């Protein structure tokens, strides 16, 4: 039986099949190579993370980066997806079957179809169909495996590596998330269960804030009432935490210790302890702010002529974590004198349900008619808002209060100024010189006056002399730090027996400027207190003697005392003249300004007082320097000290607090901490303040 005849069409179909097979092989190799690239990158990153902890940001980039690399490989090899032509497939077959002698290429070429009978005969003679079929069976099979073998091996190797690497590390790279440092399985080099911490903060539900996770923080900053969970890498190992007077013991969870607490209302230091290990965390509570309420309308206090109509009320509300409700409150007071009545209420109450809203508005109208106000009545209006704080209760925010008054009929067109009388002048004290002149005149009239009238006039002068003496006594004892004022009788009792001025002055001197002053006037060994007050005390005593004589009806004997008193009063006036002369500041003339050839910057020469220097800054710097030295010997202790210092400066200097936190974290991480320490010290020392100078054109 003769073999069936092979036609050209059969051969073409067979070569076409070979071309398809070749295309499948090329595409398969490309896809497998891309997959191998992806898996290799994943496995390599996991292996690196096992030995060197990769940061979360790096890990987040691993799988996307692997996908990008695989995609790039597909893009570069995209030509492999195109179909293989019949001619190329025939050539590829003839390369591997030299016995065909290139007749196959010619046989599948459509340009020679039916034109070359010898070729057809040759094809039949050499049974090309068999040759092609054998190639497809043998050669293609080997070729397919050859092209896909390499990527398949790479994929298998990477998968095996992933299976052998710690599952925690594989997951950390596959699904990076904050706080997954605990998944990383490291050799038990450190026995410190506090070496690695993950802190999870869950804010209160009312805040609507997401849960946050941080790894190895030095401080925990969270809303008051937040649930704070601290987890460690190892088992509990009797870990406990203390803050204020509270002690919380850790519990086991998934083979790791964890403790949960509520963020307190005040800053404090949380001390974690386990055996001999200690670690500090600063707890920095964030208080829920009260709603901010701004009363838009009425914009200012006002007076209404008539008690009718209505007030338009508008307010804007805002809160950091969501508003709960708002309203306008009013208080109306009416009446006069001691009879007042009050009426209060709310209008425009508004609720803010649903999702937390940080901003809102209130609008309402307050009917003056409904309040039944009368002339002279007042109504006080304010807006209030409450937030959603469910931990410590809703916080109340209030706006400014506006006062609306109904005018009285009698105050129209008047200026509301309360007239104040001028101060009462000193009318009841005659001068010592006048008393002296009166006494001298009385003494001259001694013979002309009857005894009784003479004595009566003398006693009248004595009364004035006594009044003046009390005035002088008040001045002296006010200066010496004792209460004078209206205690004239007490002064009299104190000086009923004229004392030695020196003893009084010595006491005052000891109580004030003893051993510190020098004489301004008078004797060189007198202090200012003595120099200024001695003449007045002496005048006081001379006046006493004068008034005693005048009381006895002897103005002639009183006159010498009065002259001495006047003389001492003059001395006291001289003693108080103190001239001080300061050093004049050097003046620099602005020549350009004088010649009007400069430019005026238009800046007013406003001088603002500089803030007082922080007395604690130098002390904090000294402590920081000690911590720098400590960091070389005891890093853990230095980190704890930095945390404590951070807590101290948190209120006055938040920037320095952040730098200190970074320094503490750097110390805990180990390695070079120079940059963090330099930044922290600069922040503690404070920046050099650049101040705009006084305008060159301003007044000095």
């Amino acid at each position, binding site marked *: 039986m003769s073999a069936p005849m092979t036609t050209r069409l059969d051969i073409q179909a067979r070569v076409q099949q070979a071309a398809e097979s070749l295309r499948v092989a090329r595409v398969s190799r490309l896809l497998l190579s891309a997959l191998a690239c992806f898996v290799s990158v994943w496995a390599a990153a996991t292996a690196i993370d096992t030995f060197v902890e990769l940061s979360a940001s790096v890990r987040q980039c691993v799988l996307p980066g692997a996908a990008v690399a695989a995609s790039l490989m597909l893009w570069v090899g995209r030509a492999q997806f195109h179909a293989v032509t019949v001619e190329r497939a025939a050539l590829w077959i003839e390369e591997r079957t030299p016995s065909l002698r290139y007749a196959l290429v010619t046989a599948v070429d459509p340009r020679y179809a039916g034109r070359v009978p010898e070729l057809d005969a040759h094809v039949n003679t050499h049974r090309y169909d068999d040759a092609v079929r054998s190639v497809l069976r043998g050669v293609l099979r080997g070729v397919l495996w050859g092209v896909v073998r390499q990527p398949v091996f790479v994929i298998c190797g990477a998968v095996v590596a992933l299976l052998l690497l710690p599952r925690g590390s594989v997951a950390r790279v596959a699904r990076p998330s904050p706080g997954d440092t605990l998944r990383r399985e490291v050799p038990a080099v450190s026995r410190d269960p506090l070496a690695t911490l993950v802190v999870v903060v869950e804010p209160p539900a009312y805040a609507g804030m997401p849960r946050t996770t941080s790894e190895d923080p030095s401080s925990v900053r969270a809303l008051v009432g937040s649930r704070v969970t601290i987890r460690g890498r190892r088992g509990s190992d009797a870990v406990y935490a203390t803050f204020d007077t509270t002690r919380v013991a850790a519990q086991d969870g998934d083979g790791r210790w964890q403790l949960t607490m509520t963020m307190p209302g005040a800053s404090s230091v949380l001390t974690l302890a386990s055996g001999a290990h200690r670690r500090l965390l600063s707890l920095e509570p964030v208080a829920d702010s009260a709603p901010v309420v701004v009363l838009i309308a009425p914009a200012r206090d006002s007076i209404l002529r008539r008690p009718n109509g209505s007030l338009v009320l508008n307010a804007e509300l805002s809160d950091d974590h969501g508003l709960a409700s708002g309203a306008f409150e009013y208080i109306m007071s009416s009446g006069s004198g001691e009879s007042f009545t009050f009426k209060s209420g709310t209008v425009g109450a508004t609720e803010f349900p649903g999702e937390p809203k940080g901003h809102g508005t209130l609008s309402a109208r307050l009917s003056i008619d409904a309040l039944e106000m009368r002339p002279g009545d007042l109504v006080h209006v304010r807006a209030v808002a409450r937030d959603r704080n469910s931990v410590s209760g809703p916080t109340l925010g209030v706006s400014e209060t506006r006062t609306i008054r109904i005018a009285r009929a009698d105050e129209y067109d008047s200026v509301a100024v309360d007239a104040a009388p001028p101060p009462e002048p000193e009318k009841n004290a005659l001068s010592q010189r006048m008393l002296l002149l009166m006494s001298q005149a009385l003494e001259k009239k001694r013979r002309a006056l009857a005894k009784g009238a003479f004595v009566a006039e003398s006693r009248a002068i004595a009364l004035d002399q006594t009044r003046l003496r009390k005035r002088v006594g008040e001045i002296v004892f006010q200066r010496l730090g004792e209460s004078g004022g209206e205690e004239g009788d007490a002064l009299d009792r104190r000086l009923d027996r004229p004392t030695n001025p020196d003893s009084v002055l010595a006491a005052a001197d000891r109580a004030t400027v003893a051993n510190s002053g020098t004489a301004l006037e008078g004797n060189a060994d007198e202090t200012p207190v003595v120099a200024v007050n001695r003449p007045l005390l002496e005048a006081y005593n001379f006046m006493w003697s004068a008034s005693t004589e005048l009381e006895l009806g002897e103005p002639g004997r009183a006159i010498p005392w009065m002259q001495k008193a006047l003389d001492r009063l003059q001395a006291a006036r001289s003693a108080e003249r103190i001239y001080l002369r300061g050093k*004049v500041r*050097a*003046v*620099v*003339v*602005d*020549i350009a300004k*004088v*010649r009007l050839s400069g430019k005026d910057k238009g800046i007013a020469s406003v001088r603002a007082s500089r803030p007082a220097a922080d007395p604690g800054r130098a002390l904090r710097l000294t402590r920081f320097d000690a911590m720098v030295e400590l960091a070389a010997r005891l890093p853990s202790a230095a980190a704890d000290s930095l945390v404590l210092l951070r807590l101290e400066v948190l209120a006055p200097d938040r920037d320095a607090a952040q730098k200190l936190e970074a320094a503490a974290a750097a110390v805990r991480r180990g390695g070079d901490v120079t940059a963090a320490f330099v930044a922290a010290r600069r922040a503690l020392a404070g920046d050099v303040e650049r101040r705009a100078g006084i305008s060159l054109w301003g*007044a*000095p």
Partner: protein
Amino acid sequence: MSADFTFCTVQYDSGDWDSAPLVPANLIDSVARYTSIRVAPTGVSVPLGSRDIFRYPLAYLTGHLPVRFTDLERRTLREYCDRGGLLFVDDHNHDVDGVFHKTCTDEIARAVGPMKELSNAHPLFNSFFTFEDGPPATSHELNGWGDNLIHKHLQAVLHGDRIAVLYSNKDYSSEWGYHPDNKRFMSVDNTKFGVNVVVYALTR
């Protein structure tokens, strides 16, 4: 900018040479205001016994208290005047006894030579502004010479026609002793004569 003129206040060991600290700034302001002279914005204080004084053609000396020059100060002052400097002395003293006047004129006579009355027609009074009546009077002028008289002339030591020492009892130190920014409150600038002194010292 280098300055053509720097106001120089003379320091001397006795007395209070710095009794009028605002006068230099005020005259600097006037020189800048009325002339195109390149003037330094601040003055300098130079000891009379220092040779630095030779760098300044005009030197201003004032005070309240008795003046006694040291030998070095006398020698320096004599050389300063011989070399063309002009010492402008103003009596800042108000006391009746004229203590500054008596002691200072005595010292100037010992160091430079006797002073004599300066004519009101002297070129000094026309060197920039014209003062036909001689030196302008001041509100502080009383009896600084101790003779209870208000003098219509200044005194000077002349080297030829040039003034070597110009001596004033007008108490310009008080008259001109205010901050130059306050000049805007005055209807007439009372420091113009100071400009004449400066221009004279720089041009003669």
